[in-house]
C-alpha cells in the first residue's frame, strides 16, 4: 500500500526492474542526489527498506537484504568535472568504471579503480570498498576518496570532504562511505584523486611472488594466479626495462591482468600482507585463486558444495592471524548456511551508532553489514 503511494509520487523516476535485482515492488532511478533524498525521505516516512543498485556486480557481498524499493543509479551517470591539471575528477555514482577509465586515459590518467567488470559503477565499487589491482602501489580505493555527496537514510543531502588532494577540514565522510555497502545512504557523487599512467608498462612472469616482491621497487602489483606469479610494472621506459631485467623473468608489454575468477562461489581471504603466501597454501587444489602479494588478499573460486566447510576452516586460521574470510559471490543457498562476513568484530556497537547518525530508521540496505547492521 505504502509502496504504491511512493510509486505514484515518484512515477517519473520509475524504471523496469532487471532480472538480477532482488525481488521488490518498485525500482526508481533518480537523476540527482536531491531526487534520491526525496525518495529516501518518503521511504523513511513509511518505514520502507531501500536497496541501492549500481550494476549489481558486487551485490554478492554481505547478508541478503529484503527490500521494498530499489534505487538504481543508472540515470546518475555523468562525469561532472575532470581537471587533468589538478589530477581530480568529479563523477556521479552511476558512471561505469570502464567508461571512466577510458575517458581518463585520454590524458593518461587513472583513478586506480578495479579493472573489471567494466560495467560496474563508480558508486558500487566505492560502496563495496573494491580496489584496483594497482593498490599495492597506489593504496586502496579509500585513498582516492576526496569528496562524497550522500543522500542519507533520513532524506538529506550531505557533502563531506572537498575536491582537493589534501584535507583535514571536519570529519572524513568520504572514507567512511567507502566500503559502507549503502548502509548510510546513497553515494551520489564523488571527487576522486587521480594518478598519471606511466609511459610504459610490462607484465613479467617470475618464479616466485614473494621473492619478486622483495626485488621489484614499487611494482603496481605482484599477483600469483594458480601457482603462476606475475609482476606488473609501470613507469618510464628505462625504469620498466631495468626492473624487468632485474626480475629475470619473461616479460610482455602492457598489463596483462588476470581475468575475473570464474566459478559459482568466490571467497576472499584478507590477512596481514606478509601472510599472503601462507594463505594461498590453504586454497584446496580443486579451487582457483588470485593472490595479491604485498596486499594480503587472496580471492578463490570453486564449487559451492564444500564452500561452507572451507569457509569455516579458513576462518579458524584468519581468526588466529588477524583477518577475515568473506563471501564475495555464491548461490543463495550458501547465505542460508553461513554468515557471509564471519564475526563482526569489536566495534559493532559503535558502528551501529554511526549508521544511526545517517540512517536513524535503518532503511538503507538493512542488515547487509556484519552483525546484520
Amino acid at each position, binding site marked *: 500500500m505504502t509502496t504504491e503511494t511512493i510509486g505514484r509520487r515518484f512515477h517519473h523516476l520509475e524504471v523496469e526492474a532487471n532480472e538480477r535485482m532482488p525481488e521488490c515492488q518498485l525500482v526508481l532511478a533518480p537523476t540527482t542526489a536531491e531526487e534520491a533524498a526525496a525518495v529516501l525521505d518518503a521511504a523513511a*516516512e513509511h518505514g520502507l527498506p531501500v536497496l541501492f543498485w549500481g550494476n549489481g556486480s558486487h551485490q554478492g557481498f554481505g547478508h541478503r537484504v529484503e527490500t521494498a524499493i530499489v534505487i538504481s543509479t543508472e540515470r546518475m551517470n555523468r562525469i561532472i568535472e575532470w*581537471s587533468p591539471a*589538478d*589530477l581530480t575528477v568529479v563523477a556521479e555514482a552511476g558512471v561505469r568504471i570502464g567508461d571512466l577509465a577510458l575517458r581518463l586515459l585520454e590524458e*593518461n590518467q587513472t583513478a586506480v579503480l578495479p579493472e573489471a567488470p567494466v560495467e560496474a559503477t563508480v558508486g558500487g565499487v566505492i560502496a563495496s570498498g573494491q580496489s584496483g589491482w594497482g593498490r599495492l602501489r597506489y*593504496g*586502496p580505493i579509500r*585513498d582516492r576518496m576526496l569528496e562524497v555527496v550522500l543522500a542519507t537514510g*533520513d532524506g*538529506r543531502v*550531505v557533502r*563531506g570532504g*572537498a575536491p*582537493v*588532494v*589534501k*584535507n*583535514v*577540514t*571536519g*570529519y*572524513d*565522510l568520504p*572514507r*567512511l562511505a567507502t*566500503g*559502507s555497502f549503502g548502509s*548510510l545512504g546513497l553515494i551520489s557523487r564523488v571527487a576522486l584523486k587521480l594518478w*598519471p*599512467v606511466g*609511459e610504459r608498462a610490462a607484465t613479467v612472469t617470475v618464479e616466485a611472488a614473494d621473492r619478486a616482491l622483495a626485488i621489484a*621497487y*614499487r611494482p603496481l602489483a605482484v599477483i600469483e594466479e594458480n601457482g603462476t606469479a606475475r609482476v606488473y610494472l609501470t613507469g*618510464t621506459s*628505462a*625504469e620498466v626495462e*631495468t*626492473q624487468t631485467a632485474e626480475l629475470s623473468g619473461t616479460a610482455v608489454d602492457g598489463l596483462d591482468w588476470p581475468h575475473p575468477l570464474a566459478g559459482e562461489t568466490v571467497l576472499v581471504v*584478507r590477512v*596481514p*600482507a606478509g601472510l599472503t603466501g601462507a594463505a594461498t597454501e590453504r586454497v584446496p587444489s580443486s579451487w582457483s585463486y588470485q593472490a595479491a602479494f604485498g596486499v*594480503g*588478499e587472496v580471492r578463490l573460486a570453486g564449487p559451492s558444495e564444500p564452500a561452507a566447510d572451507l569457509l569455516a576452516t579458513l576462518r579458524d586460521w584468519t581468526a588466529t592471524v*588477524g*583477518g*577475515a574470510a568473506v563471501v564475495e559471490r555464491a548461490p543463495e543457498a550458501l547465505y542460508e548456511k553461513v554468515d557471509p*562476513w564471519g564475526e563482526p*568484530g*569489536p*566495534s*559493532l556497537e559503535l*558502528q551501529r551508532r*554511526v*549508521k544511526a547518525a*545517517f540512517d*536513524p530508521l535503518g532503511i538503507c540496505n538493512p542488515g547487509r*553489514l*556484519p*552483525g546484520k*547492521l
Partner: protein
Amino acid sequence: MSLADDLAAFLGPGRVKTDPLERHVYARDGGLRTGPVEVIVHPRTTAEVVEIVRTARNHGSPVVARGAGTGLASGAVPTGPAVLVVLTRMDEIHEVDEASRTAWVGPGLINLELSQHIAPLGLHYAPDPSSQSICTIGGNVATNAGGPHCLADGTTVAHVLGIELVTVDGEVVMLGGAAPDPIGLDLRGVVVGSEGTVGVVTRVLVRLTEDAPATRTLLLAFGDTADAAATVSDTVAAGVIPAALEMMDRVMVGLIENWIHAGFPTDAAGVLLAELAGHPAAVEAEAEMLSNIAKANGALSARLAADADEAARWWKGRKGAFGAVAQRAPDYYLHDTVVPRSRLVDILGRVHEIAERHDLEVMNVFHAGDGNLHPLMPFDAAEPGTLERVQAAADEIVTASVEAGGTLSGEHGIGLEKRDLMSLVFSPVDLDAQARLREAFDPVGLFNPDKVLPAGSRCFDYGRPAPAQ
C-alpha cells in the same frame, strides 16, 4: 573527593599535576590561544587511560588529549576546566612486522624516532611533518598530519591501518588491523583527523614504507613566484609526481639563510625544492624533465644536490622555516588552506594583495605540489590593533582560497582557530551530519568539546519515529 584526588588514587599523587606553573605551561599549544587546564596526567598504559576517562566522566570534566603540543590550530587547548591527558609517556614501539611492513606504536612516540628505529630495515614512516623531530604519532593521527613527502605517499590517513581507541564509556575498541579492508563500517577514517573529539588514541598500527633506492634533490630558482607555481602545475600535468615539491618565496628564503645557511639563492623571488625518489632508472629522467619544465618557465637556475649532505642541508632549511620566522617578529599567523594546484598562481597573487591592503608582511613556504598553502604573517601582538588586522587579513585569505575551489585546512586541522569558518565550506545540513557522527562516538561531549564544529552545528532533527508496526 576532588577530581585530582580520584585520579591520584590510582596514578599515585606524583603523577597528577595541578600546580600553577605546570598548568601555565600546558595552557597553550603551537597555536595562538590559551585555555584553562585543571589537571594534567601522563598515563603510561591503556588501562590508565581507561581509568582517567571514567574518572573524568564521573566528575563531569572534559578530557583533552595532548601529544607534544605542537598543533597549530589550538586543538589541544581546553576551552573550560579539563583533564589534560598527555600521552608522551606512551611512546613504545610495541612490535615491528618486517614481512608485512607494519608496526604497532604508542601514541606518544615521536614521529622521527619511528623512522630512525626502522631505518636498518630499509623502511621509513612516510608522513614527515616539518615538526617530525618533536611531534607525536598520536597527534599526527588526530590531525591527519602531512609533510613534504606526503605528495607522492599521502598524508597520515593513508598510513594508519589500525587504531586502539578508548571510548567515552571507558571501553577499548580496536578499529582496523593489519589485514586489508576490515569488514563492517571503516571507522579508522573518522578517528584520523578528528582532533581528539572521538576518544583517546592509545595505540596505532602504522604502515611502513620501503626506502627509495635512489633520490635526486633539485633546487630551482625563479625570478617570479608565478613561474615557480606554473612549474608545479606543468610538472603534475606532465605526469611526474615528485616525492616532494616545496616552495619558498624570497622573504622566507632570506630568513632561512640568515638562520640555517642552507645554501638557498637569496636573490630569487621564488625557490622550488623538489625531490625525486624511486628506481635509479626513473629518477634520472624525471630530474631532467623537471629541470626542463622549470627552464621553460624561465627558471634562473636549476641545481641538482651534489651529494646527500647538500640535500640534507636543503631539507634542514626547508623544515626549519617556521623557526626562522622568530627573527622577524614575536608572533606569526600561519594559514593552511588548500586550493586546486592549477589555481596556485592566482591565489598567491590574491594573498599578496590582501596582505598589502592590511599593511602586513606576508611570506610563503608551502607544499606546492599538493596546493597546500602556508602564507605566514609575522606580527607583534603587543602592538595595539595588529592582531585585529591580522585576523581580518586571515579571514580574507581563507575566503579567497575557498572561492578558488579550496578548503580551510590541508594538514593542521580546524581546532579552535578555524572552527567558526567551517560554514564557509559546509552547509548547515553537512555540519549537522558531522555533529551527529561525532555524537555517535561521544554523546555526552566528553572529548575535546568546542573544537572542530562551530556551536549550533547539531541543529536539525530529521530522524522520524519509527511507524507503528
